[in-house]
């Protein structure tokens, strides 16, 4: 505060020259204003991206464009860097038009679940390119999402590469799945509140990943995420139970393990109960093949409660 303006200027000059030397000679020659702006094939500026949807953000990072993201939505839990270093425009179903615009985006890439509809409509009319990413929670859906996002970023070759990586992993997964002799039934517990388990039934991302991991859903008679009573939990008699852990380090999964019915299931008796990260397992981002593979390993390797501490009794 008492510093004289000259010294401030000098300091700034040092910073600027340092920055220029880091940027290299071309920057010095052209001046910093003509720094190349990344563009996609349609000529859209991709230097300031707003990413809406956890899977969308994850794919953008995977394609190496994470540095161009200026804001993400609250569901963008992975990589953890996203919510720490980028602005947060709130939950993806409750966006604010002016809030999103205030981040001065040059491109908005949003999951088809973004909302409310009036806001997405206003954003689409705002002369800022708006890309809707749709894709179901399946292997095909994942490929579709990667291709759409890569095209929007002007990174189609990188997208193709990522898809082929995913395909390689998925075909290995298929090979492994064929070696499974006896399909296990799995119960997916999303959360447990007041002693009631919320489980993943039919048509959920949990159901999809269980199938990819070569198992079958123990509660396929339910549709959606539903509460399950203790009695029904015992009746479902799962061979294994997966409990979701939230990424924020909370201990909510311990409530699920304390459910009285859990002990009486085959899974409880044989200690086939696994705690897994929710965003990783059912996020259906680019890590999906790894997640399915990990789940398969946990389900079908004999020493599930081994030293890596994933098994819980």
């Amino acid at each position, binding site marked *: 505060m008492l510093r004289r303006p000259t010294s401030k200027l000098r300091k700034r000059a040092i910073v600027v020259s340092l920055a220029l030397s880091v940027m290299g000679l071309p920057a010095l020659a052209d001046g910093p204003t003509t720094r190349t702006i990344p563009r996609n094939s349609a000529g859209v500026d991709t230097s300031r991206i707003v990413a809406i949807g956890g899977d969308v953000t994850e794919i953008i990072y995977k394609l190496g464009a994470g540095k161009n993201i200026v804001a993400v939505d609250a569901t963008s839990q992975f990589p953890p860097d996203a919510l720490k270093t980028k602005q947060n425009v709130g939950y993806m179903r409750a966006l604010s038009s002016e809030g999103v615009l205030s981040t001065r985006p040059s491109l908005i890439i949003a999951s088809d679940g973004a909302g409310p509809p009036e*806001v997405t409509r206003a954003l689409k009319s705002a002369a800022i390119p708006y890309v809707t990413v749709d894709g179901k929670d399946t292997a095909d859906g994942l490929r579709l999402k990667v291709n759409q996002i890569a095209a929007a970023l002007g990174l189609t070759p990188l997208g193709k590469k990522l898809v082929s990586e995913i395909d390689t992993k998925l075909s290995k997964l298929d090979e492994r799945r064929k070696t499974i002799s006896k399909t296990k039934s799995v119960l997916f517990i999303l959360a447990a509140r007041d002693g009631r388990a919320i489980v993943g039934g039919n048509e959920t991302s949990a159901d999809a990943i269980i199938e990819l991991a070569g198992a079958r859903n123990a509660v396929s008679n339910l549709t959606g995420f539903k509460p399950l009573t203790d009695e029904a939990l015992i009746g479902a008699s799962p061979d294994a139970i997966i409990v979701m852990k939230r990424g924020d380090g909370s201990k909510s999964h311990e409530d699920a393990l304390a459910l009285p019915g859990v002990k009486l299931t085959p899974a409880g008796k044989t200690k086939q109960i696994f705690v897994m990260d929710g965003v990783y397992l059912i996020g259906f981002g680019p890590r999906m093949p790894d997640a399915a593979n990990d789940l398969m390993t946990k389900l079908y390797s004999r020493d599930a409660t081994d030293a890596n501490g994933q098994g819980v009794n």
Partner: protein
Amino acid sequence: MATANAQLESRSRAVGGRAQSRERLLSVSIAGLFAVFVLSLSVGATGISLASLPDAAWFKLFGGDEVTAERNALVLFELRLPRTLLAAFVGASLAVSGALMQGLFRNPLADPGLVGVSSGAALAAITTIAFGNEFAKPWMDAFGVYGLPFAAFIGGLVTTLTLVAVAGRHGRLMMGTLLLAGIALGALAGALSGLIAYASDDRELRDLTLWSMGSLTGASWPKVFAILPFAALMIFAIPFLIRGLNGFLLGEAEAFHMGINVERTKWIIVLTTAACVGAAVAVAGVIGFVGIVIPHIVRLVAGPDHSIVLPASAILGAGLVLIADIFARVVVAPSELPIGIILAAIGAPVFLHLVLRRGVGGME
């Protein structure tokens, strides 16, 4: 009327200086509303201020290719202005509806949702959220993004008309029946809403929760024009209801002996409230608190005379919702808070303070 007014006057004098504070309240609140209105236009996540209004207006009128002006025009005229107007109309409608219901039922706890509008609107809204891709698809395809608000309005109106049909006998509206039947219908609509919520997936559940917290996020010109006629109708009806409601303060029979057309007044109040609250719920979701607290604040400050309670409620209701919405937009920008949280956080302490200092304002 003269007796009623005399009684009100003497009551006012007993509390002290209320005639003066009335005028003061009206002029202060009009000035305040204007200030808040301008503030609401000038703040927001983008940091665009009113200084950019001339440029933006020029762009709006004559076009151009300047990117900044285009963005400013979009934010000021397509986002902030409709949102500000919508907040004002919703606030005024809810506050006046609350004042009307409390006057009609002579009960300080009467809520604008008492005539079944809110529960009916909620049931219809929840139905379109949960079944928008199933049997409600033709409806949603026909009305697009306005499918939900329109369904909510129809739902509210149908519930109220059912109630009125149940409580009306030979042209007379039985208030006790109306109240109890309203509770019964509300419970029924609540049960159906619960059943639908049970069958919803987690995304639909989040939508349901967010809708029931109320929000002005989706404000747009069509929504402003949707609520405008109802808010105008209510403002227009106010002068015709003052005498009747002041009569009701003394009791229904007394009002009748004062020459007030009791039945007509009741019908007008119930139907206006239903239409206004239906429109407000349709465009902004369920926004509680305003309808109960604002009329009480007015009564605490200026006494129970409806010639002040009704207009002041309209102005203060609009102002409170505007202030709350400004906070909702700015506090966690670029994200947004649900307005209900802020309304309660701002309004509850003020209300409690007034109640502790002044009693309950002629409603005991």
